């Protein structure tokens, strides 16, 4: 802690302040138990009944809130019907066919697009955007889905993604643009975005269901809330980063404000904006499991149902089908953005629009062929592959052969590391922790940050969630450290090797989009329920962020600086430690920040294997339909995330100032 000392201008020596504060805390921790028991356990009588207040407010919002004669829930229901229109249109093309009537008495007037047509269209889109290799990738991905018998469910999922992603991108971009133009909005939006991203979806699922109705629409709304923030953040950041020269150029050629935004700024910020689109797609596919719990069906439902039967193979196949969708959508959208505007073609209508012409003929041809050969309409059952038996046998073999070894490793880590840390964290007096957080905030970022950290952590104690919050911090803290310890070296190893990075990227994309449920149950079989299993799940997910940002930072280092270093006779090791890592430090710190966010977002999943943290509170509140409790626990998770985020940012700024890298906006 002392290493992160503040600017030298403050009068007392920083180490002195920290020394005094830590000794005070230690004294309280060791001997305070009898003198000041309230410092250890927040007295029940002083608790703020936040759960009751929030529960009441939600109740009012969904039942009584009205603007004149129009109830709030009428407005949301209207929004729901607006979203439902494009959704059911896409669904009928991809999955159900054109129906007349509803439910089981509905009559299919026209069948959905044959699977072969969808496959062909994706291949064409891939070819249009990125040439033959991308076309091949899309065919492999979509073919995988068909061969493993997930086509029908995948189309249900694809329909909701096709509706949700453009809405999230457009909404996120509009908010980001507005925030970039109006600084006060930027400031106001920041905490809201933090909440949207860190609050577990389960916490606000019940109110959403009541407001938007049960079904795919609610799932899309929940997806929007979860997937939009990265787009907004990245938009604002990217527009700020556009160099001044570009602004000057725009002004010189006499752009109107509209032209300035759309013709100058957005194109020059295209690269980072596409990172935002990528994140929206990944986040949306992340929601597939939760969306299926509230009526969206699709691949998420297949995963849940398969794991309930412990059919790991089917669960994995459906999970990988989600990954295949993610990879297809992501690679195609990236390639579309990179593709420079083609010159206008000459000739007649078909010559001018060759791709549209091919697309139409693919549809026409496949619909005709599908009438002759039903196997082209619906992928035939007989040609399906299944790996269920293989996976069941594989898991059984590992279980029988290696269980004892794994058990020994697990016990060593559990008894040697996890349990002592957990006991230590739980024994800390909350008063001391709140005070130390306040102090850290003050030293790193001034009194405002100090006040923020102290008051947020105090609120966690005051709403009676201290113990569970500490378990949360312990689990996510250890998981983040392990993820960084694994992720940073991997990032260093692959950053400058194209081939290795391509493979690594496929692996981490898979880890990010494969529902953790898929590997959670086999892990339970090998390691039993409990903290260790939860730890594995959290690390597997959070390591994605640490690898991604380390690579981002290292790849961004100016090659001329490395050349200069080499010219001065630096060894490879010196170039790595003195130049590359040092210059990539801000990104690596951002990676740490994101690793923590990813870890916190896994809390609800870890509750499913029996940890006793805040995630469990959120989950229990959902199962008891108690939105007040869920939101309070969700807010506590968000507070932990915000404290961690702000402190790391402030530390990064301090570090940056020391290195003379200047301020980052």
């Amino acid at each position, binding site marked *: 802690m002392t290493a992160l000392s503040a600017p030298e201008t403050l009068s007392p020596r920083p180490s002195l302040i920290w020394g005094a504060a830590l000794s005070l805390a230690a004294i309280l921790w060791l001997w305070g138990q009898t003198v000041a028991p309230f410092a250890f356990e927040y007295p029940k009588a002083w608790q703020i009944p936040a759960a009751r207040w929030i529960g009441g407010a939600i109740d009012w919002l969904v039942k009584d809130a009205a603007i004149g004669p129009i109830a709030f829930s009428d407005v949301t229901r209207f929004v729901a019907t607006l979203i439902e229109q494009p959704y059911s249109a896409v669904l009928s093309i991809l999955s159900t066919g054109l129906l007349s009537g509803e439910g089981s008495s509905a009559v299919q007037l026209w069948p959905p697009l044959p699977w072969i047509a969808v496959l062909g269209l994706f291949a064409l889109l891939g070819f249009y955007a990125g040439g033959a290799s991308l076309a091949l990738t899309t065919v492999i991905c979509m073919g995988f889905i068909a061969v493993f018998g997930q086509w029908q469910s995948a189309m249900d999922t694809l329909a909701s993604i096709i509706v949700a992603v453009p809405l999230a991108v457009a909404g996120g971009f509009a908010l980001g643009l507005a925030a970039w133009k109006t600084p006060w909005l930027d400031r106001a939006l920041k905490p809201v975005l933090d909440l949207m991203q860190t609050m577990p979806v389960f916490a606000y699922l019940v109110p959403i269901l009541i407001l938007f109705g049960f079904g795919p629409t609610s799932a899309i709304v929940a997806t929007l809330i979860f997937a939009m923030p990265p787009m907004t953040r990245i938009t604002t950041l990217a527009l700020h980063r556009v160099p001044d020269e570009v602004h000057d150029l725009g002004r010189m050629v006499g752009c109107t404000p509209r032209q300035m935004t759309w013709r100058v700024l957005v194109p020059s910020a295209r690269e980072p904006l596409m990172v935002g689109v990528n994140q929206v797609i990944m986040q949306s596919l992340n929601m597939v499991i939760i969306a299926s719990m509230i*009526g969206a069906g699709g691949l998420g439902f297949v995963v849940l149902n398969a794991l309930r039967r412990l059919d790991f193979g089917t669960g994995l196949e459906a999970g990988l089908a989600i990954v295949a969708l993610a990879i297809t959508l992501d690679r195609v959208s990236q390639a579309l953005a990179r593709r420079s505007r083609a010159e206008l073609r000459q000739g007649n209508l078909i010559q001018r629009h060759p791709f549209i012409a091919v697309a139409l003929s693919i549809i026409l041809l496949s619909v005709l062929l599908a009438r002759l050969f039903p196997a082209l309409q619906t992928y035939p059952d007989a040609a399906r592959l299944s790996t269920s038996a293989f996976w069941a046998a594989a898991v059984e073999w590992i279980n029988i052969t290696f269980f004892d070894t794994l058990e020994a490793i697990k016990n060593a880590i559990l008894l040697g590391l996890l349990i002592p840390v957990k006991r230590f964290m739980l024994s800390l007096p909350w008063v001391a922790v709140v005070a130390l957080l306040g102090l850290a905030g003050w030293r790193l970022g001034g009194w405002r940050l100090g006040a923020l950290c102290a008051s947020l952590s105090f609120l966690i104690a005051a709403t009676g969630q201290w113990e569970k919050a500490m378990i949360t911090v312990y689990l996510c803290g250890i998981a983040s450290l392990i993820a960084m310890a694994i992720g940073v070296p991997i990032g260093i190893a692959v950053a400058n090797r194209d081939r290795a990075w391509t493979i690594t990227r496929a692996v981490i994309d898979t880890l990010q989009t494969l529902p953790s449920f898929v590997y959670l149950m086999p892990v339970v079989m090998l390691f039993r329920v409990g903290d260790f299993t939860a730890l594995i799940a959290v690390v597997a997910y959070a390591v994605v962020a640490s690898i991604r940002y380390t690579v981002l930072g290292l790849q961004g280092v100016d090659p001329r600086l490395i050349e200069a270093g080499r010219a001065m006779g630096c060894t490879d090791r010196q170039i790595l430690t003195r130049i590359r890592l040092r210059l990539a430090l801000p990104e690596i710190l951002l990676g740490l920040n994101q690793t923590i966010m990813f870890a916190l977002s896994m809390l609800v999943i870890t509750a499913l294997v029996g940890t006793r943290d805040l995630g*469990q509170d959120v989950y229990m509140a959902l199962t008891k339909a108690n939105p007040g409790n869920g939101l309070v626990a969700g807010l506590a998770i968000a507070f932990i995330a915000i404290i961690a985020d702000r402190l790391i940012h402030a530390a990064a700024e301090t570090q940056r100032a020391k290195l003379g890298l200047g301020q980052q906006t």
Partner: protein
Amino acid sequence: MRRSIPFLTGLRPFGLAALIATSSALAAMAQESTDPIKLTLHDWTGQLITTQLMGEVLKKAGYSVEYVQADYLAQFPGLESGDLHVAMELWDTTARDALDASVATGNVEVFGATGMQAKEEWWYPIYMKEQCPGLPNWEALKEPACAEAFSTAETAPKGRYLGGPVTWGGYDEERVAALDLPFEVIHAGTDAALFAELESAYQRTAPIILWIYDPHWAPAKFEGEFVEFPPYTAECYTDPSVGLNPDAAYDCGKPFGEIWKAGWVGLKDKWPGAHKAIQAFTLDNKEMGLMITEVDLNGKAIDAVVADWMAANEARWSAWIAQ
């Protein structure tokens, strides 16, 4: 369910036939709404079977039926608002609180019991009898050697009992204390985690004792027994003086529970006939157990199992919709 129909013969003849079939069936129920009745599907086989059985019966009566995939507990707001209409399996043992809260809003109505009984209790694989010869009598668990056989590194020398998710309740901590059992209660987070552990232990013939419920595929797939605790009485849970331990409640086994049908309160007015049919629906544990085994262990499709039952029990389901 949503599934496209292979398209061989062209569109019109098929569409026309279906149209005639449905319209004639609907004519019989002219006074009722033609909107689809939405039944919720959850993620376990028994519930999928029960729901599709009900759905098929309602279709025979000429109703339009739609299945909606929904989480077991997240479905209640949908049932209250009328977005969803019928939930076919609400277990006393797991959804009691949520159901009570939902009924209290006045928007959800219980359509009676399904006739199936939820049984839940401590359960062990049969090979554990070698190490604890006194089982299934609960007193065998008090032997230190027996408890040790069930222990792990974290709990030793106490035995490790794997309980259900905390949300299920069950009073196992209280039971362990009241009966003075040398066991520690560990909670699985979900049902899937519970059975993953059982499968793992069974493959290795390793010790395990855990919470199992029935009707479920696990008692059919794995050979084992329920522990026999002192039988449950209502007083045992409420009155400390009743039972073996005069100073503590919960010194007995777990209660059997009903499995309820429930749904949107408006169903009665919108589809009165369907309301009666749903109320009349009953099955018993044995029938259900057989059907679950067919699906989960013999790999038959749910549709096929449901169709078999419909063919074999025509008299029964005809009576439900005849009322």
